[in-house]
């Protein structure tokens, strides 16, 4: 069952740069804040109408009491460049929360890995806040770190950097091996090569693994069939081996998808 969602004008409470080309946008939108679950995303719309597709951005933090939603994103093109210019007091149209989110209940009584790569790291913050039990967070960066304070406050944080400037030199799996880490379940978000490696790792270790996928989207709500992924079994909705990342996902059990 899809979550409830709203199309709303959100008030910009503030924005700051948290890294090179990486921005943290704080929005006031009470309904989205109240409904949001870790791993869900919002569609953010450009003011410039010549850019008509919304940009799907994962929810980094949602505070139902304050009615706020925090988005952390990287400038990837003209649309996100427009968002980076938003100032306190501006309004921005959003649709959300969208997608399924991470299945927190699966982690009950288990030791969890929360694994993020690059701009896949932000959703781990809210996930770490709400996930019960023991959790180890493994964050993979190219070189520059971001969100490390938020993460280390909510779990044991291990860092991998491609250039070795902080933590393990290499990727998140190198970091897991170097530190001799083990877990009973994996939640991950990041680039496809990382997810593919984690899927293989989870199969070897025989532990459940939930991966958050990314794809170009148009409607964001399951109507247009732009953002599908391949599945191992025939999907009930599509009647073919395709699932909608925006609707059935973005989080999938690794075994049900083909990467």
């Amino acid at each position: 069952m899809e979550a409830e969602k709203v199309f709303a004008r959100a008030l910009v409470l503030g924005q700051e740069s948290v890294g090179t080309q990486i921005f943290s946008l704080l929005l006031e939108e009470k309904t989205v804040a109240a409904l949001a679950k870790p791993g869900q995303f919002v569609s953010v719309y450009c003011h410039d109408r010549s850019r008509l597709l919304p940009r799907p951005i994962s929810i980094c933090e949602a505070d139902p009491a304050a009615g706020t939603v925090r988005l952390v994103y990287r400038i990837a093109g003209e649309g996100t460049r427009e968002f980076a210019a938003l100032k306190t007091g501006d309004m921005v149209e959003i649709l959300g929360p969208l997608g399924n989110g991470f299945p927190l209940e699966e982690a009950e009584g288990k030791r969890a890995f929360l694994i993020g790569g690059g701009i896949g790291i932000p959703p781990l913050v809210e996930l770490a806040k709400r996930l019960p039990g023991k959790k180890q967070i493994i964050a993979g960066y190219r070189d520059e770190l971001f969100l490390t304070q938020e993460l280390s406050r909510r779990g044991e944080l291990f860092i991998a950097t491609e250039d070795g400037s902080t933590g393990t030199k290499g990727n998140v799996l190198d970091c897991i091996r170097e530190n001799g880490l083990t877990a009973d379940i994996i939640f991950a978000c990041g680039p496809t090569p990382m997810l593919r490696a984690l899927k293989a790792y989870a199969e070897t270790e025989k532990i459940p693994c939930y991966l958050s996928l990314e794809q170009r989207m148009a409607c964001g709500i399951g109507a247009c069939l732009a953002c599908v992924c391949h599945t191992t079994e025939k999907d009930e909705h599509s009647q073919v081996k395709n699932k909608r990342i925006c609707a059935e996902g973005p989080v999938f059990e690794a075994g049900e998808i083909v990467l």
Partner: protein
Amino acid sequence: MTEKFESDAFTRSSTGAHDAGRTEERNENRKVRTAVEIAGVTLKNPVMTASGTFGSGMEYGQLTDLSALGAVVTKGVANVPWSGNDVPRIAETPSGMMNAIGLQNPGIDTFIRRDLAFLEKADTRVIVNVCGRSIQDYCETAERLSGEKRVDLLEINISCPNVKEGGIAFGQDPKCAMEVTAAVKRVAKVPVILKLSPNVTDIAEMAKAVEAGGADAVSLINTLTGMKIDIHRRTFALANRTGGVSGPAIRPIAVRMVYQAAHAVKIPVIGMGGITCAEDALEFLMAGASAVAVGTAHFRDPFASVKTARGIAAFMEEEGIEDIRELIGCVD
């Protein structure tokens, strides 16, 4: 709870939605007549959804009021499930987008059981878009759908540019277009709309061909074939290499073709291509379209079609136009 959130969603949404809300209040006492007729089927207003952009209305129906629309036009359905193309299936283009979904659809059995059952409750006309790889495919699906009482009209897609033999083979040759029209007309028990491709030299010739084949109406334009290169990856932006361009960027081409088609045939013309609001829709109506469809604009604003319908009524009231038929084809 769902209903509460839906109404919240509407009142909380953009200034545009607030405007639409005010328009609705104004229209409560309105005397304007917005109903149009397509092949004997009356639509409460001329605004439909364009096939492929709106699913079967289930998803958008959670946010917006389907009963405010003249008709819901479903995504294309075939006799069997289709997997569609590889991803990436879409890319943004200036004031538009390109898609190459490849007509992914769950097949007629699931469509009837799930999508049509959902539309049973919707207070709007239902137009089912039909796709196929052969004349036989089109006929099989059209015949099955004709037996469903919820189906008001069929729209035959002979113009999808994104799949081999997915229609475009029929849609670019007048003789083939006439043949598929005649074959579908033999089995269909509801009126049949033929959806035309703009990727032809002479749109009037295509419109005349399907009229000669017995079409009850034509709809146009489908998307224009385009290509986008990702210069950083040095490859095509879409897995399918080419895709159909839609959105405001193509609107002037669509208005021109609708005008040409409307002057070439006697059957009603349904106009579409880049409509985002009432002003855009009115261009098509004045150029000769009896109805219009809003498509890609839903991706920028989920309320685009509903706002367009309300905006047309508001325009009529402001301009003192009592019947929308006064506007259809008024620019000659």
